[in-house]
Each structure stands twice: as structure tokens, then as C-alpha cells.
């Protein structure tokens, strides 16, 4: 079958970079499988419990870059207890023992300890890049090890992690010889920052392109940092409170003007709005703007800034921008591809300021829009139909109407038709989140039309098992299905067990599935881990005479090649 020597085939494979494509290549024949596995440098594992480190290393001995994801997505919303799992320690231990030349590690929703970070920092001479997203379990002491021991560190990117800040001197742990930093993101750190150490580090990092500061970096420090790093491409401003008449502010204005490479702006974790104008001179270059943490900036200031951002491709903002503000975005940002509008009022005072009008305006004004996350007060079918017509190119469509079960506010109908229009028009839709009042009908549409759908999030929707069945039977590419508070039960769960082999995972919480249903599923599918998370009282489930019919609080199942995991806490029952 092979007309070419292995080295040639391998060279051809070098051009194939996506995981999906490389996985496909490895299935062609034994010879290609072998060549592919020895040449694979980047591996992506979407569920850390689907396999184990030993199998990973056996198959890909030349591994350089690893991405691992741990907890299920709903852990973001506090639906998964902290001790559930997702520990990175065994992975790092195994990688260290094997002496693989690890250079990059990217973790999402995993438990990382200082011990893990220390081991990581000492075990891989060429380690370059650490990206931690939504992780927890470590402190700034762990960061100090990374800083001190990774001689060629290029990226230290901490996104939305829960880090215990010991207010130590981790920044001073970067040796004077460390000049290789390209990315430094510590915005999620709560404590003080050694500004002197930070400024010296930035000054000796000529390749630094991305710098995201935490709250403890005041304005005058920002001005100094920007002055010594005019090559900055991606900046996360920390604290932004200042006196517009002060010398620091003048210095900042001057420094900003010199940052002609700046393309991405974020942060403003504490901000005084009237000083945003300092950034106006570089706005015309910005392609990405994240003001979603800047709660103190009112709509009018946001609008003034955005009016200068004609090249914006990505915008994350709070709903305080209002429908009127979104109209300004629609008329200004013609290159917009991704929009996220977050709620500014989570407690529910009803002050949310965006409605279906803002969404329609955006869809009409931004022809390149393909990803949206939109939290709003209300929606109508008519608006969704219009949005579908205006933007048939959606890849990700996530709509969150803040009040569960809310119908079309004009007609009082369920929103089945509106979402139906979206899935029908958007033939490339890969991710969808539903909200509002929805019946089984919307799932019929999804099963019928959403052929490319890989991830679906359902909450407070549907009437009967038929809803879930439409989705399981129709969406051939489904990978991650997560459902909460919907009336789907054992019938839907058990209808086609082999379906779960084609999916990464299924989450069902506060639904109608029973313990006996889950047990039957576990029996039929030994290649699945069927986990019941029951925080109240695990024993109660067994003792209760009606055990079989007891409803399961939280069910999380996923395919795996390594069987039951050994690190589950007592409240997780693996059937």
C-alpha cells in the first residue's frame, strides 16, 4: 500500500495538524497508524478519564504537547462538587517517569496542586508553555516553581482559575536570565503584585506579546509597563482608576499611542470610565475587545469606545451596553465574528438591558458573525426567525433567556419555531444552547436539521422522553449532551445504548432518570463509566425499598477505554 518510504509519508503528515484529521489518518491502515503515532507531537484528550497516561505514552512516545480536560462543563455553574476529580498529578508523574520531551501543557477544569506544578517544572528541560483554564487547587507557590525552574518559559497563561494567592514573590522567582516570555497572564490572581519585579521582567522580555495584569497593578505601573513594551499585541489592564489630571495619566496616554501593535484589549477589572478615552487612539487597530468584567463602565462610555473600533472581530461585553449600544456595534463593527453579551445583574433585579431587538440589530449589521453567547431578558420567535435569515453562518449559537421557561413575550408561545429556524438555516451549527419555554417540538427540529451539531445544552425544556430521543436519533455528530431540569427519563436514556460510544459524554441532572435505569445502562454498556453524583446521602439510595425507582440527582456518563476510575470520592457512585 505504501509507495513512499516512511519518512516521506511522515513529512506529508506534518502538514496535517488538526486532531480530527490525524485521528482519521491513523485509521487508514496499520502502516499509517504506526507512522502517525510516532510523528504525533500534539495530543488532545477531551476527557481525562477516557484514557490514562500509560496508554497515552505507549501510543505517542514523541509527545510534546498535551491538552487535557477534566470536569464536565456544568462544573462551571457549581453543579459538580469540588472533590469530584480531574486530578492532573498522575498525568504529570507518568510523563515525568517516561522522560518524554514535554513542552506544552494545556489544562481545563482540572485539579492542579503546587506539588504537580513543582514536578512539572523540574521534569521537562524544554518546557515552554503552560495554559491553565478554570483550574483550581494550587497557590502562587506553584507558580513560583514554574517561574524559577522553567528556563525556556514562553507562555504562562492563567485564565479564570481559583488560585490561592500567598502574596509571595513568585514574580521575582523568574531568574534574570529569563528573557523568553511571550505570554504572561495573571489577571485572575487576587493579591498584591510585586510591581518592581514585574516591571523588570517585562523590561527584559523583548518577545512579550501578551500581558494580562491583575487588579493590584495600578495605573502608574501600567503606564511604565506599556512604555517598556510597545511591541504589545494583547493587553489586559488591571486596575484602571485614576485621576485624569495626574502625571501618570499623561504618561499612560503617551505610552498607549506608541503601542501600534496592540490588537486585543481586556481587563479593566476596576475602572474609572471617563479615562477610557486614553485608548481611543489605538482602537482602530483592535480586533478583540473584552470589557465583560468592567461593571463600573456605563453604556455611554462603552459606546464611545466602540465607535472607534471599526476592525473588531471579537467583542465580549456586559448587557449594560443596552439594545441601543448593540445597534452602534452593528453599525460600526462590520468585521464582527464573535459576540458575547453577559448579564450585569445576576441577582435578578430585572435591570438587564438587552432584548431581542439588540440581537436582531447585530444579526442585520454583522454579516460575518458566526459565534454568539447572548444573555437577555426576553425573546420572540419572530426575532429568531429574522436572526436565522440574516446569519445562516452560525457555528455557535447560545441564547440564555434569564428567566427559565419564559415564552415568546409577544405571543406567549413556546420558542420552538424560533430555534427551529436557527437550526434549519445554520447548516454548520456545531454548538447550541437553548432557553425559554420549549416543548418536544424544538427537539424534533434539532434532530431533523442540526446535522453538524456536536454540543447541545438543554435546561428546563421539553415535555416527554420523545424530546431527548429526537436528538439522540437525529444528531449523528453529537459529542457532548448536557441536560438539566428536563423531564427525560429511562426510556430515552436506554433507547440506543450504542449511541454513547460515539459521544464523549452525557450529563443529566434533575431529570427523570432512575437508579434502576442507570444500572441497566451500566450493565448493557461496560465500556461506559456511569457515574451517579449524589451529595445528599449515598446510602439512602440503597436502603430505600423503592431503590430502583429513586430518581437520580446527577448522572454523568462517558466512554472510556480504561474502565472505572480509582480516584472517585465517596459521593460518586460508579455503576
Amino acid at each position, binding site marked *: 500500500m505504501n509507495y513512499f518510504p516512511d519518512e516521506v509519508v511522515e513529512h506529508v503528515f506534518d502538514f496535517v495538524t488538526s486532531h480530527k484529521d490525524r485521528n482519521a489518518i491513523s485509521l487508514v491502515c496499520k502502516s499509517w497508524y504506526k507512522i502517525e503515532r510516532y510523528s504525533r507531537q500534539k495530543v488532545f484528550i477531551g476527557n481525562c478519564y477516557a484514557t490514562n497516561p500509560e496508554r497515552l505514552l505507549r501510543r505517542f512516545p514523541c509527545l510534546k504537547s498535551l491538552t487535557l480536560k477534566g470536569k464536565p462543563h456544568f462544573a462551571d*455553574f457549581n453543579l459538580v462538587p469540588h472533590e469530584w476529580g480531574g486530578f492532573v498529578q498522575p498525568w504529570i508523574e507518568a510523563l515525568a517517569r517516561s522522560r518524554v520531551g514535554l513542552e506544552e501543557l494545556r489544562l481545563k477544569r482540572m485539579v492542579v496542586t503546587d506539588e504537580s506544578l513543582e514536578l512539572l517544572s523540574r521534569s521537562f528541560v524544554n518546557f515552554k508553555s503552560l495554559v491553565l483554564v478554570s483550574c483550581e487547587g494550587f497557590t502562587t507557590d506553584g507558580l513560583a516553581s514554574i517561574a524559577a525552574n522553567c528556563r525556556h518559559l514562553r507562555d504562562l497563561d492563567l485564565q479564570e482559575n481559583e488560585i490561592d494567592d500567598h502574596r509571595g514573590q513568585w514574580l521575582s522567582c523568574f531568574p534574570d536570565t529569563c528573557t523568553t516570555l511571550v505570554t504572561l497572564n495573571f489577571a485572575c490572581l487576587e493579591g498584591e503584585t510585586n510591581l518592581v519585579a514585574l516591571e523588570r521582567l517585562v523590561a527584559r522580555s523583548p518577545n512579550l506579546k501578551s500581558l494580562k495584569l491583575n487588579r493590584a497593578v495600578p495605573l502608574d505601573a501600567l503606564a511604565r509597563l506599556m512604555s517598556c513594551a510597545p511591541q504589545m499585541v494583547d493587553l489586559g489592564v488591571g486596575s484602571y482608576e485614576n485621576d485624569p489630571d495626574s502625571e501618570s495619566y499623561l504618561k499612560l496616554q503617551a505610552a498607549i499611542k506608541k503601542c501600534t501593535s496592540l490588537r486585543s484589549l481586556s481587563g479593566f477589572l476596576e475602572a474609572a470610565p471617563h479615562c477610557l478615552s486614553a485608548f481611543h487612539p489605538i482602537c482602530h487597530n483592535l480586533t478583540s475587545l473584552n470589557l465583560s*468584567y468592567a461593571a463600573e463602565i456605563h453604556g455611554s462610555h462603552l459606546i464611545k469606545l466602540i465607535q472607534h473600533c471599526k476592525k473588531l472581530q471579537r467583542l465580549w461585553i456586559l448587557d449594560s451596553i443596552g439594545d441601543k449600544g448593540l445597534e452602534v456595534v452593528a453599525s460600526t463593527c462590520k468585521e464582527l465574528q464573535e459576540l458575547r453579551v453577559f448579564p450585569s445583574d445576576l441577582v435578578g433585579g430585572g435591570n438587564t438591558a438587552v432584548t431581542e431587538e439588540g440581537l436582531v440589530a447585530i444579526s442585520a449589521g454583522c454579516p460575518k458573525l458566526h459565534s454568539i453567547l447572548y444573555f437577555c431578558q426576553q425573546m420572540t420567535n419572530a426575532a429568531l426567525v429574522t436572526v436565522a435569515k440574516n446569519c445562516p453562518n452560525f457555528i455557535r449559537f447560545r441564547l440564555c433567556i434569564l428567566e427559565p421557561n419564559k415564552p415568546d413575550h409577544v405571543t406567549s408561545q413556546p420558542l420552538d419555531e424560533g430555534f427551529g429556524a436557527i437550526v434549519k438555516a445554520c447548516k454548520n451549527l456545531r454548538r447550541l444552547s437553548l432557553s425559554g419555554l420549549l416543548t418536544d417540538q424544538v427537539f424534533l427540529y434539532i434532530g431533523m436539521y442540526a446535522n453538524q451539531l456536536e454540543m447541545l445544552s438543554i435546561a428546563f425544556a421539553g415535555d416527554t422522553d420523545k424530546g431527548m430521543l429526537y436528538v439522540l436519533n437525529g444528531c449523528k455528530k453529537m459529542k457532548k449532551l448536557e441536560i438539566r*431540569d428536563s423531564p427525560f427519563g429511562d426510556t430515552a436514556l436506554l433507547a440506543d445504548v450504542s449511541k454513547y460510544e460515539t459521544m464523549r459524554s452525557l450529563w443529566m441532572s434533575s431529570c427523570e432518570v432512575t437508579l434502576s435505569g442507570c444500572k441497566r445502562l451500566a450493565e448493557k454498556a461496560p465500556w461506559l463509566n456511569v457515574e451517579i453524583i449524589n451529595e445528599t446521602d449515598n446510602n439512602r439510595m440503597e436502603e430505600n425499598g423503592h431503590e430502583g425507582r429513586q430518581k437520580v440527582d446527577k448522572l454523568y456518563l462517558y466512554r472510556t477505554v480504561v474502565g472505572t476510575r480509582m480516584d472517585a470520592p465517596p459521593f460518586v457512585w460508579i455503576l
Partner: protein
Amino acid sequence: MEKEGLGLEITELRLGLPGRDVAEKMMKKRAFTEMIMTSSGSNSDQCESGVVSSGGDVEKVNDSPAAKSQVVGWPPVCSYRRKNSCKDASTTKVGLGYVKVSMDGVPYLRKMDLGSSQGYDDLAFALDKLFGIRGIGVALKDGDNCEYVTIYEDKDGDWMLAGDVPWGMFIESCKRLRIMKRSDATGFGLQPRGVDE
């Protein structure tokens, strides 16, 4: 806009959904409204420990269904973002907890909890400790005889000399503190002393 705050939107779902047997629907569906109604009752499915269970955040629910209650994990905003949006409110909120303290010549910005001090003497001691420099606190007690002045920004955005108003009034209105060199303080634009009591 919907009527807010009275929970009447819950009853709106029962009205005017044409062609639906609403009562039956409400029984079959584990609707949001059900959770509000039943989670304060003794439904055995609900968890007693107040931890997340079948959809009701028991601790937060009032008995009256009219009260707006919160469901755990809803709206689906990740916990990091929730914490950070609440934090903004609390650090700038006047009178509660932490205020920022800056000192001229020191590259660190510090935060301190005003609530943990009992009076100006305590505050003086705490400030000295915070920066590791003796003599800051002296200014509060001894007015004109030291190198530093301690000023604070009040609710209205004005900068005032610390130590003039009664302690209770001070912690209510202090938004942040700044320790300035006396030589820089003249001409800074401090509001005049002598608040009417």
C-alpha cells in the same frame, strides 16, 4: 417589560397558552415554577442539607412563591465570573470592608479592612504595620508634626484629611486612603476642615 418582583410572571404561564393542558404540563415538567413552590415544602426528593439537589437552592427560597428565588447554577454564568462581578460591587461599596491604601513613593497598592479597626488610634497602628514605616499614624494623632498626611476619598469623590470627623462617620464614607507627603499636600485641593456635626 414584564412585571417584576412580584413573581406574577409565574402565573402568566398558566394563562393563555392556547391548546395546552397547563395543569397536566405543570405536573409532568419539573418546571422552574414547581421548584419554587415545592422546594420550601417537604418533598422527599429535595435535599435537606441545603446542598444542590434537584434544582432548588433551599437556603435561598422563601416560603412565599411570590418571592424571586434563585436556582443553583442559573443563569449559567461561570463561578469565576460571578465572583468577580460581585467583587466589583463590594470593593467600591462604601463603608464595607476593604479600602485601597496607597502611599506616595511606595510601588505597592495595599488593601485594608477598615472594619477591623476600632478607631483612629487603631487605624494609625494598622497603617504603620501595613507599610512597615513608622510615623504614618502619628499624623492622625498629632496633626502638624510629621512627614506624612493621611487623606481619604469620600463618597462624593472629595479628598478629606483623615481624623477630623467621628470614627463612625469616617468609616461610612471612606472609599479609599492615601498617605501623602506633607510637602505635596498643600495645593492638592483638600476640602476644608470643620464639618458641622
